[in-house]
């Protein structure tokens, strides 16, 4: 839940007093014209950008001042508008690196050698391979992530986020720049994740996808929330139609 969140950039109010509550186990769409502050708001929720004012509550705890990495460890995980794969790591490594509990992921663990941390590593490799199979990317396991297509990079990001076993997933335009066939795949996977109880807040421009996928929608313009509800109810509101839904 976000309450009165502001984010200023030297006098420019990118996010201007946004308050929303994201329902558990649902997909919530966050839409609005370019420059509405959607991605900035998502970054503030994830902790990538600090909030200038306001409160962010997650799982009953005020996390407004919590750094991004600590939020991710608690299950609030984001993806990015632009591809953010670890280019010179293989696809499997991109997933493994996100696994939160590995005894070899510290200096002392590393120095103790493979025999010490492989006990944790092997189940994580199995978990990552399970995700690759589910997302149809098994054959790409050992390819460098940087060589993947735009759509495959989106899938890597989603799989990487899932390795953390998140409770809330913040997706920033997961379908942008993606081939239509992979858009359908991502759509299908997101529906599956919802069925499994994952809470998703998704910034998206493609309104027909939002309509098909999201249980509810929040509309932003000029840094403020100007409406919320289902797409059907939003289409009834003239100011929202004028601001964004024309066409």
């Amino acid at each position: 839940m976000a309450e009165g969140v502001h984010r200023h950039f030297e006098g420019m109010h990118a996010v201007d007093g946004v308050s929303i509550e994201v329902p558990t186990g649902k997909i919530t769409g966050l839409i609005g014209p370019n420059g509405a502050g959607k991605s900035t708001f998502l970054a503030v929720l994830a902790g990538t950008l600090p909030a200038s004012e306001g409160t962010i509550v997650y799982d009953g705890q005020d996390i407004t001042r919590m750094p991004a990495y600590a939020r991710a460890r608690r299950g609030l995980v984001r993806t990015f508008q632009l591809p953010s794969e670890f280019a010179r790591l293989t696809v499997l490594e991109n997933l493994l690196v996100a696994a939160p509990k590995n005894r070899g992921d510290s200096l002392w663990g590393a120095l103790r050698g493979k025999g010490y941390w492989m006990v944790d590593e092997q189940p994580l490799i199995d978990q990552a391979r399970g995700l690759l199979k589910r997302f149809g990317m098994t054959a790409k396991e050992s390819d460098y992530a940087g060589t993947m297509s735009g759509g495959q990079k989106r899938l890597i990001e989603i799989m990487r986020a899932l390795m953390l076993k998140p409770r809330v997933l913040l997706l920033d335009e997961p379908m942008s720049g993606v081939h239509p066939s992979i858009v359908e795949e991502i759509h299908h996977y997101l529906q599956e994740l919802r069925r499994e109880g994952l809470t998703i807040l998704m910034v998206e421009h493609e309104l027909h996808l939002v309509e098909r996928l999201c249980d509810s929608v929040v509309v932003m313009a000029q840094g403020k929330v100007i409406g919320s509800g289902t797409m059907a109810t939003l289409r009834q509101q003239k100011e929202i139609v004028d601001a964004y839904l024309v066409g």
Partner: protein
Amino acid sequence: MNSYYAATLAVYAAVDIIACIALNLQFGVSGIVNFSFIVFQSIGAYTAAVLSMPPDTANGAYQVYIGGFQLPFPIPWIGGAIAGGLLAIPVGLVVLRKLRSDYQAISLLVLSVIANSVIMNARTFLNGAAGIAQVPGPFSDQVDPLSQTYQLLYVGLTIPCVLLVWLVASRIVNSPFGRSLRAMREHEVAATAIGKNPVQLKMTIFIVGGVIAGLSGAILVGYIAVWAPSEWLYPETIILFAAVIVGGRGNNVGAMLGALLVPVGFFEVTRLIPATIGGWVPPPNLIPAMEWVAIGLLIIGFLWFRPEGVRPEPRRVFGGAPVPEDLVSAGSS
């Protein structure tokens, strides 16, 4: 090649290999552009020197320095390594926490220049620009340092250090911790978004690199017996960067290869240049100046034509994985 020269070459090679492995951990694996690397090597050298030397009142008090504890081997080498690590803490806390990576590089370069100027001009600490001399090497009170036996002994002492550093670096690079470092190098914000604490990762590897750099300085000063600001001017760091870039960033084998090709290779090649060319006697500073030109061209050439270096970072293919198509085609060609 006589045995003294061979021993000198071996010790320099060992020192450069250790230094390049440390720089590779920081720069090649973790993406920290540590342009002040030579300062960490230098603090290790100075610390080892003042731990092993007698008080400055000895030998007619012709040089001035702090300390002078006359401690036996291996304490000076251990002290040098610890000093490198300790220096990394305040430097890292100031430079690595808030600054963007390009500003980090600039700050570290400036630090290198400032540190050198301070030590050069503040004579009371470490004898200023003249530096400190007559640094006793390990066991030099028991074995004549000018003897062939001592040369072999020194090479014998450096080899376990190279192996130890190699083992530590390999375990780091090939572990999940190394994977986190590489992820941070590739995309720091994305690494943060999956729960990695970039400050903690950077500080850890900066301190580890500082310890190894300090050890390399301690080994070198014990052998050459002198250490002065002219030994560790900031361009010395550029030579080590050239070595890591040429050898292959992110790869310990590449770092070792780079150390042998660049610092040691240049040392050897310039020895072979004749003093006169067809009766013409070149100016005395021409060869050292040409070395810098060659190092600059080497860096530009590799970054342009083979940025991954001679031995690129290896791809990690896990057991039971399908073999990637590009590796299949590379293997069949």
